[in-house]
Structures are given as C-alpha cells and as structure tokens.
C-alpha cells in the first residue's frame, strides 16, 4: 500500500483498497495489509506488531473477563477500588491532552517552529485517547450501558459526567481538526476556530479529570483544586515526551531520516526548551505535593509516607523526571537525538508510574471498612490488568504505524505540496 499521495478522503482510500484487493488477490492483499506495503518499514513494523500483540492481549483479556469477570482483577471493595486499568486510562487520556497542548503551540499560539509536529500530535492525541477509552471500557461493569445512561441521567453534579462530556467534545474536535489537516487546511477561519475550541476543550477535559479526584474531600491525598492544575501540567509533559519519542520512532530513531523542517526543529533549541520547562514544572509539582503530604497531620495523608518509601516513586522522581530535566537543560546534550529520545522515554515511564502511584496510594489509607486492617491497603495488579495495559499500548503502536503510512504525519503548512522531494518516513 504505497500511496504516492495521501488519499483525499475515505472514499478514495476505500477505492484504492478495493483496487489493490482485485489486483493482488485476497491472500496477497491480507499480507500487504499486515505489513502496510511491499517494503519493510518502521510504520509497517509498528502496525504488524501492534496488531499481533493487540489481538493476543485482547484475546487474553476477553477470555478472562468472560470466564472470571471482574474477579480477574486484583481490585477489591475493601481496599483498592480503582486499579491499574484506571491509571492506564488516566495515563493515555492525559498524554492525549498533552499532545493537543503541544499541537496548540503552533496552531493556537502562533509558535511557528512547532508546525512540523502539529499534525502528528493531533493523530497521536486521537489514538491515545482511543486507547484510553478502550482500556476504561474493559474495566467498567457495563460499558455499553454508559452510552445511554449518561446522557439520559444528565448528572451535572458528577465530575465524571463532565469529564466524559469534555473528553467526548475533545475527541470530536480532534477528529474534525485532523480531517481539516488531512485536506491541507491549516489556516482557514474554520481550522483556526477548531484549534482554539480543541485547546479549550482539552484544558477543561484534563482539568475535569483532575477534579474527578480533586473533588473527593473524603480522600485527602487527592483533594484540592491543585489536583486539576497538577493534571494539566503533567499532561503537557506527557504530551511533549510522547511526541519526541514518537517522532524519532517514525524515522527509525535516525535523525537523518527526518524531513528537513523536522530535522532542524529537533536540532534546534525550541524542543528541548519546552521539554525542560515542562519537566521542571512537573518535578516542582510532584515535590510540593509530597512536601505538603508528608508535613500535614491530617488523617488520610499517611499514604504519602508509604509513597516516599516505595522504589517506584524514586524511579519516577530521579529517573523519570530529574534525569530528563538535566539532559534537556545541559547545552551539550539537549540537542543530541539520543539524549532527546532517552529523555522522552524516561519521562513517559515516570508519568506512567506517577498515574499509578497517584491513583493507588490515594486509596491505600483505609476508611472505616479498612479498620479491620491495621495498615495500608495492599494491591498488585493481576496479569489480566497488565494485559489491559499492554492492549492500550498495542492499540497506540498499531494506529500510529497506520497513521504514519496513510496520512503523511510530517505535513505542515510550509510543505503542503504533495509528493515533494522531502524524505519519506521510514
């Protein structure tokens, strides 16, 4: 499936696929569909392995859910109600929000140097949000019932209701926005309006996700308006890390494979500057949250003591935030691809841990039900829960590979000409 140019619309793409199927026969067509082309490519590999791992992990999760139901999870009414699956959802939802923030740098705030990554950011925002929704749906008792019960209930007092509303608006706007970019519409009033609306929606969505936790006065480790701000700030960092890593990944982690505008952007100071600033802000937020948690005598904050004793927390702070911060502020390192890739990967690891520890330690201090026990509630995710996380990542990898192949994600307003001589994605 080597398109000489992007398909202009779904009808064109479907026509091309039907032609290909007629020309090649069913078997060859299926083989080409799995490899995304005759030649080996990074996008094709991502798609192939993403689909394979995604199908395997989905089969495992589906089997466990059908045979064991929710008993396949290690969550419990007595201890941790929301486990790994919810933290994976938070991770993907906030990464999606962060990617939209990064896309907004050029598309809303006019920082033109970030145009080369804008379209890729929007595509990644769509697929990470989709992966998050998928994992969340598998965790819910009745995901399909949600589709009618939430609009019918209109429980405007529930932060979760508003989170769903804003993330749905966010997803719809992202899809329309991507459609406009697919048609090379970067600057029309409609396109600009979509960018601004999308930015507003994503601030509200990620902030409201924070308020799902921040509104819980009975859970002091989460309570407070800072949680919404914390989510928005760390979302931006997740997005920055994801786009750095994903961009390099699309070109086989080889700087020289990138098209010119992207290459010069990666080699410039703009990217490390944003990355370092966001890492610094996130580090500051994490440390201040821990400080107030350790200092206060308020009942229910004891989880912070357990948190600072856990190895995962130190991996997050030292390896996932401090080290990338140093890498991105050091003049000798910040513009080198290998250190940018390292920083991106470490920050994503740190943010994954952060979502998990935030969620789990926030529930670890028992309330009255837990008074049977004298310590913190214990929890370790089950294999089914881990496989749900794997499924989420597989969806992102597969869809990223597909998007890279189909949609010319490096497109930007300065390179609108189709089939130009710029290097193709590997």
């Amino acid at each position, binding site marked *: 499936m080597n398109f000489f140019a992007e398909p202009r619309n779904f009808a064109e793409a479907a026509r091309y696929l039907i032609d290909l199927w007629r020309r090649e026969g069913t078997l060859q067509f299926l083989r080409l569909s799995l490899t995304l082309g005759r030649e080996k490519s990074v996008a094709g590999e991502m798609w192939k392995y993403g689909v394979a791992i995604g199908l395997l992990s989905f089969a495992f999760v589906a089997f466990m859910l059908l045979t064991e139901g929710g008993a396949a999870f290690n969550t419990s009414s007595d201890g941790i109600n929301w486990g790994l699956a919810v933290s994976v959802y938070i991770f993907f939802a906030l990464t999606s929000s962060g990617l939209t923030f990064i896309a907004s740098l050029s598309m809303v705030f006019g920082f033109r140097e970030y145009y080369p990554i804008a379209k890729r950011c929007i595509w990644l925002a769509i697929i990470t949000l989709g992966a998050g929704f998928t994992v969340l749906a598998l965790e819910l008792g009745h995901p399909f019932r949600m589709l009618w019960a939430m609009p019918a209930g209109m*429980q405007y007092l529930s932060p979760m209701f508003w989170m769903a509303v804003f993330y749905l608006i966010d997803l719809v706007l992202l899809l329309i926005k991507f459609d406009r970019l697919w048609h090379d519409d970067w600057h029309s009033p409609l396109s600009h309006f979509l960018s601004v609306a999308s930015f507003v929606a994503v601030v509200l969505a990620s902030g409201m996700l924070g308020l799902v936790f921040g509104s819980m006065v009975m859970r002091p480790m989460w309570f407070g308006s800072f949680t919404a701000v914390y989510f928005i700030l760390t979302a931006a960092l997740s997005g920055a890390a994801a786009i750095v890593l994903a961009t390099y990944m699309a070109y086989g982690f080889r700087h020289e494979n990138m098209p010119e505008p992207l290459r010069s952007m990666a080699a410039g100071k703009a990217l490390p500057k944003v990355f370092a600033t966001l890492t610094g802000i996130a580090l500051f937020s994490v440390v201040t949250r821990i400080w107030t948690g350790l200092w206060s005598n308020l009942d229910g904050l004891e989880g912070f003591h357990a948190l600072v004793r856990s190895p995962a927390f130190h991996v997050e702070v030292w390896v996932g935030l401090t080290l990338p911060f140093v890498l991105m502020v050091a003049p000798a390192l910040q513009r080198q691809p290998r250190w940018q890739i390292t920083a991106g990967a470490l920050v994503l690891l740190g943010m994954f841990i952060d979502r998990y520890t935030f969620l789990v330690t926030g529930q670890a201090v028992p309330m009255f039900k837990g008074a*049977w026990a004298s310590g913190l509630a214990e929890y370790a995710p089950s294999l089914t829960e881990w496989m749900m996380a794997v499924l989420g990542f597989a969806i992102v990898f597969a869809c990223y590979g597909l998007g890279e192949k189909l949609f010319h994600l490096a497109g930007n307003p300065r390179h609108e000409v189709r089939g130009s001589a710029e290097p193709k994605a590997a």
Partner: protein
Amino acid sequence: MPKWGMVIDLEKCTGCQACTAACAMENSRLPGESWQDVILFTEGEYPSVQIKWFPRPCMQCENPSCVHVCPTRATYKTDQGFVLIDWDRCIGCKYCMIACPYGVRFYTDEKPLAAPDPRKVFKSEDEHSWNPPWKAPQEDWKRGVGIQPRGVVSKCTFCYHRVSKAPKDVPDLSEHDPKTREYTPACVVACPPTARYFGDLDNPDSEVSMMIANKNGIRLLDQLGNKPQVYYLTGSGGAVPSNRAIKKT
C-alpha cells in the same frame, strides 16, 4: 412524608454481629459483602491494648456524595430518605465507592472472600450474579433490592422492601411493637440488646428524634458534610473510632 433514620446506642451494642447475620440473610449477601457490618478495631498498645467495635450500616446521608458523583444517576435519594441504586442504570464505574466516606458500598464482580466461590457453586443461569439455594423473595432492581446482576455496585437499602410498606404517620418502627415489627429493618429486629432504633427523624415525637436530642446523638465524620441519617449515642461507654485506624508513621 417521613424521613427515616436510625439511632445506634453504642453503650448497648455488644458487637455480637447479629445485625450483620440478619442483614446477610434478609438480603442474600455473599460472604464479605456485609451491607451491615460491625467493625472491630484495637486501640492502645500492649499491655494496654483494647479491642473495640463499631456497628456500621449505610448512613443514608441527607447530602450523599455517592449520589452526586454517580454519572448516570443510578444512585439516587428518595423523598423518604433512602439512598438506593438502580441496577439497570449502574455501569459499574465504582466512583460511588470512591466517594463514600464510610466504605459501605460493594462491587459484585471481585475475587471471592470465601472458597469455593459461592457464585460458582450456586451458579446463576440468568442475569443474576449468583443463585443461592435459599434467598429472600423480594426483588426490585430499580431500588437495589434482591440479588444483583453482574457488574454493578450494591449497598444497604435500610431494608427498603420492609420500611416502604410501613403504615402512614407511624413515628417509629420497632420490633417490640407487633404492628410495626414486619416493617422494621432486619438489623434492628435482630439486635439482641435493642441497641438500634428506627424512626422518623422529621417527627419531633419519634423515639429516635428524642434520643438524638436528649442523649446528644452524633453523626459519623460530620465534618465531611454528608449529614448521615444514622446517629450514634456514645454515652459513657461507647466508642467511635478515629477517622483512620492506621498508625501514624
């Protein structure tokens, strides 16, 4: 319209768990799914350690955070003060369990606390989560009464199926009054030392209202603003646990 509430006299409660057993039988609960529980906890350290207990049903709050957070309105509060769950609307998101300060909500699909898993031994062939050999006859999924389907949250209903049928304008429902006994919640009926009282909180002549006024009834975690409709009388011998039962580090 009565506003039903409960008073639990901690001076009288012996921690015998008769209420827990009666609730489990009345409502066909799984082991560990104790809508009504008596929480045991310790205070002090050896050699001055004391074991204490605390009976804890759903507080049926006046201002219930579980109702406010439910994204589908599956959890709701009735005019008579019951906090109920519509199992046909519940999506099993467990947000209400997160938001309940008293830990009185239970998710159906979890690892079993007893082995073998009663849900597998008494497997249901229909939408019910299990099919015990004996179960109470009442069932009303719109109000969270009976054996629940899979993938939903359940909780104490204040024995809605009994209380809602009580004669009008009765100030109290008491197991000692033959006219109201069958409408009284199972945990109140079963309490051997009569530590539980059930009545109309809006009626100043009800026994529960007078006890709350005369004996200084308190509400659990009142600072959180949920305003429970379950009051405790602490007197001189009762014990209300501190908010969190774990040691400071």
